[in-house]
């Protein structure tokens, strides 16, 4: 796990990196010293259990376990880790919040803590401490951490970036030496790629990650919105119709079958050489690197930020992973200590590196982590926290936004129009009706 040394990090030159990455006994000393000086002293005999989403990059989970382990060594607090596929974290956390029993900490998705804000431990002190020490939080992280309230109810640990993955050689052949940066160019790109027999595609099935990422990007890129800032439903607009038309034009240049894709189909198809561009986290690239037979794909692929639409600014939608502690925990100080410990440079830098770009930090200082520059192909993922919008778009990040995403309202609207099942007006009407119900 020692991808970089103390020296390279010092060269990086930021306060964040200065503490460096220690290993072995030195790390333990550091961790003990940290525990001594920390303002959060775990309760005597404290034990914690944490439920997290199931990893996609094995080395990320290894680093996570090592991190938990070092916390135990430093503080004596034992930690039990449980993993659930990421759609199942929310129901479990909700039931735990309702019954007042279950894991002390949940590491889930998007707006999870906002489903039951009064059941989450106030962690304002931890967030302030980390923000001050590490160059401040990115604005979207503040939204996810505080919602519309004044208290931080969760620590926005990181994002998982969802960007465009493309094959360099084929794109060049189609006349694109770099990936398009506007939606018009993007459509031309999709057409050119299809014309030369190297098409791409993005999921239109019920793919919670990849599917939602691209349809929300598309909706927002053309100025469409699910709700306004007062959570009033405004999906029924000419902008939404423009977004739908663009998506349909794009869809016509996809490989066949994208309407059936869930989150893993595009990974398989890209690695199998069937598609030459798609949207995904960094997991395709990591998988290609780890598989000796796919080395050539790893070398020939790259990542790009989402093209900007008529609204003229980035409208990306990345996965947020907030960490929350529950009010029913018997060891609130231990929870806070763990949260702070996880995001300290000595721990977080190693973890970020091990995740190979799958996770992106929300604290500005970690821009200097070498993982973003060691391999140029991971660099685009560095900035996703600064480019993303939040789950509710213009509106709040609470329960309603979560429901709308989970029920695939927007995704189904796009799929219904692209596949020709509904005309634009019909597709918007169905979505509008469902959204009004959710946002009543």
């Amino acid at each position, binding site marked *: 796990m020692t991808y970089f040394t103390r020296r390279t990090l010092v060269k990086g030159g930021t306060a964040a990196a200065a503490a460096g990455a220690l290993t072995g006994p030195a790390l333990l000393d550091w961790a003990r010293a940290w525990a001594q000086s920390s303002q959060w002293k775990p309760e005597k005999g404290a034990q914690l259990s944490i439920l997290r989403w199931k990893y996609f990059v094995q080395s990320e989970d290894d680093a996570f376990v090592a991190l938990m382990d070092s916390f135990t060594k430093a503080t004596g607090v034992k930690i039990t880790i449980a993993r659930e596929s990421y759609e199942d974290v929310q129901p479990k956390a909700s039931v735990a919040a309702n019954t007042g029993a279950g894991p002390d900490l949940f590491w889930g998705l998007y707006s999870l803590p906002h*489903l039951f804000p009064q059941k989450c431990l106030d962690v304002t002190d931890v967030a302030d401490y980390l923000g001050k020490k590490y160059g401040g939080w990115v604005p979207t992280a503040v939204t996810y951490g505080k919602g519309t309230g004044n208290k931080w109810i969760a620590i926005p640990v990181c994002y998982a970036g969802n960007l465009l993955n493309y094959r360099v050689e084929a794109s060049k052949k189609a006349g694109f030496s770099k990936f398009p940066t506007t939606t018009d160019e993007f459509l031309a790109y999709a057409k050119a790629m299809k014309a030369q027999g190297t098409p791409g595609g993005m999921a239109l099935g019920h793919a919670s990650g990849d599917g939602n990422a691209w349809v929300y990007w598309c909706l927002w890129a053309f100025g469409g919105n699910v709700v306004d800032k007062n959570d009033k439903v405004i999906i029924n607009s000419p902008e939404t119709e423009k977004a739908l038309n663009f998506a349909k034009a794009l869809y016509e240049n996809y490989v066949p*079958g994208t309407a059936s894709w*869930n989150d893993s189909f595009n990974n398989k198809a890209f690695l*199998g050489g069937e598609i030459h561009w798609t949207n995904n986290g960094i997991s395709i690239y990591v998988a290609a690197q780890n598989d000796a037979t796919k080395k050539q794909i790893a070398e020939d692929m790259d990542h790009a930020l989402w093209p900007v639409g008529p609204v003229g600014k980035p409208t990306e939608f990345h996965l947020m992973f907030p960490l929350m502690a529950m009010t029913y925990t018997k060891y609130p100080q231990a929870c806070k200590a763990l949260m702070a410990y996880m995001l300290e440079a000595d721990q977080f830098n190693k973890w970020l590196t091990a995740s190979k770009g799958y996770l992106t930090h929300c604290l500005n200082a970690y821009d200097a982590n070498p993982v973003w520059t060691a391999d140029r192909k991971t660099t685009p993922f560095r900035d996703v926290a600064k480019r993303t919008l939040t789950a509710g778009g213009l509106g709040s990040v609470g329960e309603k936004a979560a429901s709308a995403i989970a029920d695939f309202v927007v995704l189904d609207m796009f799929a219904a129009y692209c596949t020709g099942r509904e005309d634009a007006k019909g597709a918007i009407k*169905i979505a509008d009706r469902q959204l009004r119900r959710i946002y009543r």
Partner: protein
Amino acid sequence: MADIALKSSGKAALREATAWDRLKTNRNWLSIWFMLPAAAFLILFLAYPLGLGVWLSFTDAKIGRSGIFVGVENYEWLSDDSIFWLSVFNTLLYTIVASTIKFAVGLYLALLLNENLPFKAILRAVVLIPFIVPTVLSAIAFWWIYDSQFSIVSWTLRNLGLISSNIDFLGDPWNARWSVIFANIWRGVPFVAITLLAGLQTVSPSLYEAATIDGATAWQRFRYITYPLLTPIIAVVMTFSVLFTFTDFQLIWVLTRGGPVNATQLMATLSYQRAIIAGQLGEGAAISTAMIPFLLGAILISWFGLQRRKWQQGESND
């Protein structure tokens, strides 16, 4: 001595019998006591969850938060919800087509296996295989078979030169419907076949012998001996088969998650998606509750339509 003993025991026996004493020893009540554990079990694990589900459908409960009573608001909403009606249509299509074919193929297989074939035992075991494989595993196998890019079927046909591009099994609404129905049939046939086979074995060979001597054709033997004697089993098998198909969840969830554009969304999957994934417990419960009339209908048809009353009442089946 004897006198005294008699007197004292007589006194004790004269104690007024309480209501509890009567209940304890009354033979009519005895059966109640014996049924109590089973009843408690059924109430706790079947009636209570069912009742709770129905109650939830009249509230606006969300996951992690109990709701308030909203009357039939959830149902009103669903009555005007095109996705809900699509799921009803899909469920009925799925159940009717899959159950009919499962019955036809199952009966055919059962009749075939009832003949004197070589390797009879092995053949019967082989037929059971689809039923033994866990649903999720077989669903994942079908997932690969139906993959839009890597399908073995598309690959074979393409290499044989019969088609020029991959078949879009799960991406086109009707293809997707037939694909999941096929997977369900594949899985369900063994259950029907083996149960009907068990029924066939109980038919006395002497009946066939007598019929053969009377000069009955193969069709007549089936129509007038096999079929009437098999009806009770058919009723049971088809009831179960219809119930299993109607409430199928795993296969759809793994293969399509209800997609494309809800073309394979069944009531069970829609209920799960709305209730658990999107957190709208009340609405999800209403969708589940809406399944009950259909299921009751299916049960009533098979019990009162297919079965002969005498057999039901335990009398001899003439």
